[in-house]
């Protein structure tokens, strides 16, 4: 047995929100469980009720619209990583999803869970930041949109309340609108959390570049946008390195020292620019 909790599997978003509301902060949303069950086992969390949202049909969709991707909150990461449409429209998201955990973990873990767990190292977070994604959140007052940029408030902390559940992740991704890339430094070739991860996007029309960095601050960090017009990849990456050094505050932990993170971050940013340049997105 892992901990002591009750289990409920509501069929609708409204029923899930009511359950969370009744139990106040004593209940936890249970999707893939690959973070939650480990935290319960380790004694870091002790919810009295798990509200399993995998039985809600609305949360299990992956819809490819004209201008956006809509990924239901209970959709497993393998479905995201293996979707041809996702890879075609937003290659960074497919790559980031594929870099998480193992095949078994990705069969359970969800995109929404990866961001809502709010690890500074969450691999999909930098991608969602540079793509301008938003979460559709249901709470006692109804539904609202929360930009991913406004989600992270600290290590493992978000702006969502204990009565909220995420319905879907909505990502602007019109065909051919964005070139994207995701890079991750890890200790071993197999499955590992990121020592540093970075994602970049370039708007094909405006040539505006957005870059986000993970594992180098209490939250994933979206850097100020960069106008790439008339700039060489080398000039752009130097600009990004300056921005990233100001916006991040790497620490030493079990995966790497702060000085290693400070050393590898510029390397990843240069590679990111080179990758986007190779796609023709940068000068």
């Amino acid at each position, binding site marked *: *047995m*892992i*901990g*002591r*909790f*009750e*289990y409920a*599997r509501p069929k609708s978003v409204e029923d899930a929100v009511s359950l969370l509301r009744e139990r106040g902060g004593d209940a936890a949303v249970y999707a893939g*469980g*690959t973070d939650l*069950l*480990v935290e319960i*086992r*380790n004694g870091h969390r002790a919810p009295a009720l*798990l509200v*399993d949202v*995998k039985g809600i049909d609305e949360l299990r969709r992956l819809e490819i619209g004209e201008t956006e991707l809509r990924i239901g909150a209970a959709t497993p990461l393998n479905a995201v990583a293996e979707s041809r449409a996702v890879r075609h429209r937003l290659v960074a998201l497919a790559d980031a999803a594929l870099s998480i*955990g*193992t*095949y*078994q*973990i990705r*069969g*359970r873990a969800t995109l929404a869970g990866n961001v809502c767990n709010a690890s500074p190292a969450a691999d999909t977070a930098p991608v969602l930041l540079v793509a301008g994604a938003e979460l559709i959140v249901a709470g006692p007052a109804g539904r609202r949109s929360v930009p991913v940029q406004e989600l992270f408030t600290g290590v493992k902390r978000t702006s969502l309340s204990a009565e909220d559940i995420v319905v879907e992740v909505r990502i602007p991704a019109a065909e051919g609108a964005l070139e994207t890339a995701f890079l991750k430094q890890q200790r071993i070739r*197999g*499955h590992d959390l990121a020592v540093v991860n970075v994602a970049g996007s370039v708007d094909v029309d405006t040539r505006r570049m957005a870059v986000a960095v993970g594992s180098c601050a209490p939250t994933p960090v979206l850097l100020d946008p960069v106008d790439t017009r008339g700039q060489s990849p080398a000039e752009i990456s130097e600009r990004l390195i300056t921005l990233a050094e100001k916006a991040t505050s790497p620490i030493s932990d079990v995966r790497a020292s702060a000085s290693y993170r400070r050393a590898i971050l510029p390397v990843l940013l240069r590679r990111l620019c080179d990758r986007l340049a190779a796609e023709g997105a940068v000068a």
Partner: protein
Amino acid sequence: MHPISFTVNGERQELCVPSSMTLLELIRDALHLTGTKEGCSIGECGACTVLLDGTPVTSCLVLAVEADGCELTTIEGEAHGGELSSLQQAFIEAGAVQCGFCTPGMILSARALLSRTDDPGEDEILEAIAGNLCRCTGYEAILEAVRIAARRRRPGEAGDA
């Protein structure tokens, strides 16, 4: 307690499970199918891998109650009528089994891979078993076993893995 109904290796089961029981505990302690191993208990090692509706999961990170309505396949479902599957046979031929602790999970991850494709590339095989740690073999013999089993499944080549 939750009443659940599911099939394990094709056989129907109905029982009551507590909320916080894991699928791994259900398999080993309630169904007494001890081929499934417990390693790390946090989804890292893959020793407890089983197939839930054909999808490989680490059963330490799944609740028993979630088996309700599902088809569960454990390593005991791999052999039929005392005959090893040709995937199991390939593991023996390639010398892919040493201490054996990772083998049940490894075989089920490989089984799921072969159900997705008859002709997996090297990267696909590596990705499929990246979540199953082996401390004995160095993996080469395991990769070879999966290649042998895949080859035997392809049309025009012998075998029935």
